[in-house]
């Protein structure tokens, strides 16, 4: 039975016949152009299937006639970025290391590049904030094993420390304890306490400073110097510093004297390009410890 549409008396318009708890829905027709635009968008989407990658297949997907792939966009954007950076990268390559900080634009560029490269390559050992951890030096303080000038830092980054490369920094800390060692166990303890005293740390009861001084002069001073201030030529640390690479407690110092130390850092000259190594040197130098 066809029913005549109901007229709503308040508005004079027809209702759709739908009713919920006495509330009826007015018929508010959509404009036809709206419908046609909706159809047009459907047609447009079919066009997308044809020209762009769209449908997943079992082992592949439809490639689309435009041959578009988002990978190309990435490559193109990276190339554009490289071209954009080429001018400053060239200037960075030409400028001597010491002069980079004098040009604010170049310094900003080197710091940004250095920071990114540090996060990618150095942070695993030295930490994201370059504050290091036991065995891995803090690069923000003023305690440097091999020198904190920008040229020294560049040298260390480029060739590394105690690695197979001849150009790397060399200088072992030999173990002085053990059955055939130069020092007997109680002498090791004495020297350890002498070293602690050098940087103002408390010593154990019964420690003999005179004996400690004598043992240090005979066994350690050759590298660490008579006053324990170290020698950067061979990476012998300044023992009067408050900052200890491996730890300043007596147990750790005894372990260091007994077994020796020989931390290794890889060289980066072959892995990173020259401007990146330069940027890293500028960045590390600017962290605060640079001399």
């Amino acid at each position, binding site marked *: 039975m*066809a*029913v005549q549409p109901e007229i709503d008396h308040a508005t004079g318009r027809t209702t759709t*016949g739908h009713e919920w708890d006495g509330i009826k829905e007015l018929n508010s027709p959509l404009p*036809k152009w709206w419908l046609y635009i909706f159809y047009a968008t459907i047609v447009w989407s079919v066009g997308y299937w044809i020209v762009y990658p769209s449908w997943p297949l079992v082992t592949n997907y439809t490639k689309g006639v435009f041959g578009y792939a988002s990978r190309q966009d990435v490559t193109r954007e990276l190339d554009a970025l490289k071209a954009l950076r080429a001018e400053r990268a060239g200037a960075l390559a030409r400028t001597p290391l010491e002069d980079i900080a004098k040009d604010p634009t170049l310094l900003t560029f080197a*710091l940004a590049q250095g920071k990114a490269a540090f996060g990618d390559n150095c942070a695993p050992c030295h930490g994201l904030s370059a*504050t290091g951890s036991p065995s891995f030096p803090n690069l*923000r*303080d003023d305690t440097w094993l091999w020198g904190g000038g920008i040229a020294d830092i560049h040298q260390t980054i480029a060739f590394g420390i105690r690695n197979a490369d001849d150009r790397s920094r060399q200088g072992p800390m030999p173990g002085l304890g053990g059955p055939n060692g130069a020092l007997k166990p109680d002498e090791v303890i004495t020297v350890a306490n002498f070293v602690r005293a050098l940087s103002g740390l408390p010593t154990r009861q019964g420690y003999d400073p005179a004996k400690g001084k004598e043992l240090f002069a005979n066994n350690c001073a050759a590298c660490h110097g008579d006053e324990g201030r170290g020698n950067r030529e061979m990476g012998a640390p300044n023992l009067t510093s408050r900052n200890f690479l491996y730890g300043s407690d007596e147990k750790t110092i005894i372990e260091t004297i007994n077994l020796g130390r020989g931390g290794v850092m890889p060289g980066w000259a072959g892995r990173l390009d020259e401007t990146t190594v330069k940027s890293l040197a500028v960045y590390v130098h*600017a*962290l605060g410890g640079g001399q």
Partner: protein
Amino acid sequence: MSDILASATASKGAPPPVPDFPEDEPLYESRREIYQQSVKGRLRTIKWAVLVGCLAVYYFLPFLRWYRGPNQPDQAVLVDLANNRFYFFFIEIWPQEIYYFTGLLVMASLVLFLMNAVAGRVWCGYLCPQTVWTDLFTTVERWVEGDRRERMMADAQPMTAAKIGRKTLKHFLWLMIAWWTGGAWVLYFADAPTLVKDLATFQAPMVAYVWIGILTFTTYSLAGLMKEQVCLYMCPWPRIQAALTDQYALNVTYRYDRGEPRLSMKAAAKAREAGEPAGDCIDCRQCVVVCPTGVDIRDGAQLGCIQCGLCIDACNSVMTKVNRPLGLIAYDNDVNIDRRRQGLDEVYPIIRPRTLAYAALIAAVGLVMIYGLMTRSFTDLSVLHDRNPLYVQLSDGSVRNSYTVRILNKRPVHRIFVLAVDELPLARLTAVGISMTAGDWPVIDVGPDSTREVIVHLTAQKPADLPPSSRVTFRITELGTGEKVSMSDHFISR
């Protein structure tokens, strides 16, 4: 319907028949072509003036020059996206001063509210770009194809060469206006005379042509093809403004207390002679044919009415001809219709709590903005303490904190600042890449209209004497003028 329901309840047991939606009741509505008739009158004149004024500002403002100094853009209004600057006559705004725009938008919306409280949809009827450009496009249409009657007759007849020619000319002119509209838009984003030359010689950047294309399309389709459909179906403002109006707001109103009952002139004269009620409305439908959205104002305030007042002009000219008082349709409200019917005087309280509140808010926001602009600093300093690490212990036991300092120079000249730290007497301040010093303090030069970021290290010799976190104030002093700006931060000692 009620009959059906009644019969349904009568026959117990059987469910009531559900009225199904008949096939011939459409869910989609065809567009009703509106042949807007030209009209003359006071409000039409005001509308012309507003139209010419708005379009003149839009099309020619980019060419207005404003000298700011050497190496500075001399365009009065310029959105310089590449260099992150916005220029508006004597005002130059940096991205971090975007709150001026916020203030401007707050003001704009309050003005819109105030207009609504005073006289309804003034924005819709006179100022909205959709209204202005639609009015312009309709004028062009009328100029090419003739007024309402001629266009209706032409559309009812089969295609002829002359008709095709007129339609083609109309669309060509519409496209030209749309193209010029798009062209004017891009001129706000670059030096206008240079860009015009570049556009003409095809030297302009691709993005300029793309934007001209987009705006040509939107202007042509919205003002030429869609017209009133934008107001009826697309625009949210008619829906919002219903919540902003009140019973005293002046809206374009058919004074039905005067107009009803509608009678023809003859019938009305006869009724008046007989002492029977006769309204002033002669049902000539002039108010409907001049309406840009095709509504009948006599149905009362409605969503489709943009309140442009053209029906007021149309009705007034008819009332003049039939020798009845003007203002059968006028800016009025239902309160006064009721008062007249009760024999009371009309009231037009323009000043009422709502309008006063809006006006006060506009004044308050305006004063805050003027104060902000007058006291706008041309030098600024920001200091950011390193988050990781918070401090570094040095070999001699002293402690260093690192900060990123940024100096903003909003003047168009090179300036030199001395960076110093107060409240930390034994501290030493060094800045990366800065070799010049004044006393112990680094000296930093900042280029014209630019910023400079510098990493600084602050070292305290005896951290044990300091609290774990102490306040430090970084202060820049300009060499020469002595202008000072300072910013506080903290020094972490352990």
